[in-house]
């Protein structure tokens, strides 16, 4: 059997997905037996020009991580889509926009003004901002355009599968790679994870009745070791988040922050969490309800931490 041709690419991402790919440990050698990696800017010394020379659909699968933040990201997404039979949105940035997507609460101008003019260490009396084309004595220098709005991969090109997580856990990555290697591929559009249900389903903490009088931030209390964190007033996102990670954060006494994205069938993860919360607030008095909700200091940033570009809001 001919070896599979696999490409890996990063766009607007942190590199954690690259490390997550390496985190499959010695299984990487198993992968090397059955697949040739034909493009991987972080690990292998192939260039963009090498991809351009490839025939359309000549790559069997592309694992694309990172959101679409610049014109370069968009160009590479379209190029790799054309060259690949299967396009996989790998990780939360390409799937939902993730942390880079939080900048959709702002725009290019406010981001640039903060970064290049305002910060206390910046020395820029002439208020110079980065330009896409700059003439220097040696010629013209170009930069990719920095877009006003961060988009997901799925808003840019057609995506076949999604691997969730920030970053995907080792076992989630391997589940996707195994499907590729064996050719036993799920239906198009599948979010590849060990669970279609919520993180709560795999969390060992004891759940009783959820009735909340007060929300706390993680630094304000030491939670009881075995009881559900949400019941203790911590904003644990597990109830609105797809499982498959093994509920790692709650087991480290920290609330789930929602990085595996929405549970099966839910479009807007933030709205889902909000509706779950509203059903457990222990009060019928509007004033008291308001007071309880006021304990959540940054609701938009909290509920849409990973999913703003992919939410119904997309940007603010």
């Amino acid at each position: 059997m001919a070896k599979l041709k696999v490409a890996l690419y990063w766009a607007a991402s942190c590199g954690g997905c690259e490390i997550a790919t390496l985190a499959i440990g010695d299984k990487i050698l198993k992968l090397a037996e059955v697949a040739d990696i034909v493009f991987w800017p972080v690990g292998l010394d192939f260039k963009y020009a090498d991809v351009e020379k490839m025939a359309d659909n000549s790559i069997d699968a592309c694992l694309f991580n990172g959101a679409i933040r610049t014109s370069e990201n968009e160009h590479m997404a379209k190029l790799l889509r054309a060259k690949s039979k299967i396009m996989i949105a790998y990780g939360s940035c390409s799937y939902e926009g993730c942390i880079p997507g939080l900048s959709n609460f702002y725009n290019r101008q406010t981001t640039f003004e903060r970064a290049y003019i305002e910060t206390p260490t910046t020395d820029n009396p002439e208020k110079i901002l980065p330009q896409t084309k700059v003439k220097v004595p040696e010629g013209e220098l170009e930069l990719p355009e920095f877009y006003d709005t961060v988009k997901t991969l799925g808003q840019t090109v057609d995506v076949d599968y999604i691997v969730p997580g920030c970053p995907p856990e080792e076992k989630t990555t391997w589940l996707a790679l195994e499907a590729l290697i064996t050719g036993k591929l799920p239906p198009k559009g599948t979010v590849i994870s060990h669970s279609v249900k919520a993180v709560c389903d795999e969390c060992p903490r004891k759940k009783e009745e959820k009735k909340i009088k007060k929300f706390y931030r993680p630094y304000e209390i030491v939670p009881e070791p075995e009881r559900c964190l949400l019941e203790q007033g911590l904003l644990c996102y597990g109830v609105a988040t797809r499982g498959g990670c093994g509920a790692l954060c709650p087991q480290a006494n920290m609330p789930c922050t929602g990085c595996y994205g929405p549970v099966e069938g839910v479009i807007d993860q933030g709205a889902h969490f909000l509706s779950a919360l509203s059903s457990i607030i222990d009060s019928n008095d509007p004033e008291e309800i308001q007071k309880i909700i006021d304990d959540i200091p940054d609701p938009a940033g909290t509920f849409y931490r990973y999913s703003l570009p992919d939410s119904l809001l997309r940007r603010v």
Partner: protein
Amino acid sequence: MPQITQRICGVCPEAHHMASTKALDDLFHVEPTSAAKKLRELLYSSFYVTDHTTHFYILAGPDFVMGPDAPPAERNILGVIAKVGLELGGAVIKTRHDNHWVIQTIGGRPIHPCFGLPGGVSRAINEEERAKIEEIAKSSVEFGKLSLKVFDDIVLKNKEYLDMVLSDTFTHRTYYMGLVDENNKVNFYDGKVRVVDPEGKEFIKYAPRDYVKHLAEHVEPWTYLKFPYLKKVGWKGFVDGKDSGVYRATPLSRLNAADGMATPLAQEEYERMYSTLGGKPAHYTLATHWARLIELLYAAERMVELVQDPEITSTDIRIIPTAKPDEGVGIVEAPRGTLTHHYITDERGVIKKCNLIVGTTNNYAAFYMSVKKAAEDLIKPGKKITEGLLNRIEMAWRPYDLCLACATHSLPGQLPLEVTIYDAKGNEIKRLSQGIE
């Protein structure tokens, strides 16, 4: 913030997580318990072992192990494994895998940990976990020693490579920055930032809160990344020497800026390196790889010290902050340079302003200088221009272990490079490029 800021860099999330957590300690005016600090440093040392391993074997090693002229398809980690043997290749994979387990055990997750809180950490470790970490720490020390031997055999015993390391092509005389403990020994997790001048004399030493007094950042229109420099010396452009505010913050810089290493085996290697390189400070950019391996050994030795500390399994790991939050600065040594996080909040502790100077950014000016010098020295009239030559120019910046996504905060990911060679009349004679359409 510890969980958000680390997601601008998944290669060194632990560094952002730690700088951020320390900034929160400062911001909430809370001193973590002694056991919490030790757990943080234990995780951080384990992270250094994995990160320096990744850089040396996967990112930089292929140049030396395979040679700068090897074809691109072989100049990578799989090529390295094929050449050095599966045994060492296996040790590389095992060291990374084991230390990711340590990071997950202490930090809650293998990548993007979640344990840092102002005043402490979220989870203690038990004796069973401690014993396993001790085993991994000890084997990491052996791996550190082995890696220095590999460097000896492949680089130091090969005259061609050693000459390249010591050549003027890969040399710049700059200021050097690094975090030091109270004895001026290298420390990754805590201490004061010390800067030495190109002669090796202490120039400044500052506590985190004073960083604004000492650093400023220059802006150019052709890049998304800024150029930090020493405020007292000033921005004089892309030049080295004592009159230029350009400084470097790399593994070699940290060793240059300190008086030594705090653990015995690393100290021996530190002395051996400087005696081979002809004294301190060393200005040879390619020696950064050597310094990185000495740091790897130090990190592993420090792991052993911390994991054998009786307090490491203490459950006294949290102090609940009670003071009103306002402003905080946290500094750690990220593998790629000194990392500064600075936040200002409202009285509810909601961030209103944030400023970060991240590892790679520190070295951005020096990186351009290194590439320019290598290109000027290597491209000569009548000399054949090859892929190997292009790679030698790349070798001028690889020691900086660039992480540009992190440094620009804009996450474009990859560094494009184009070498255009003109003849004396300005006619283009050859163009080599990567990452450019």
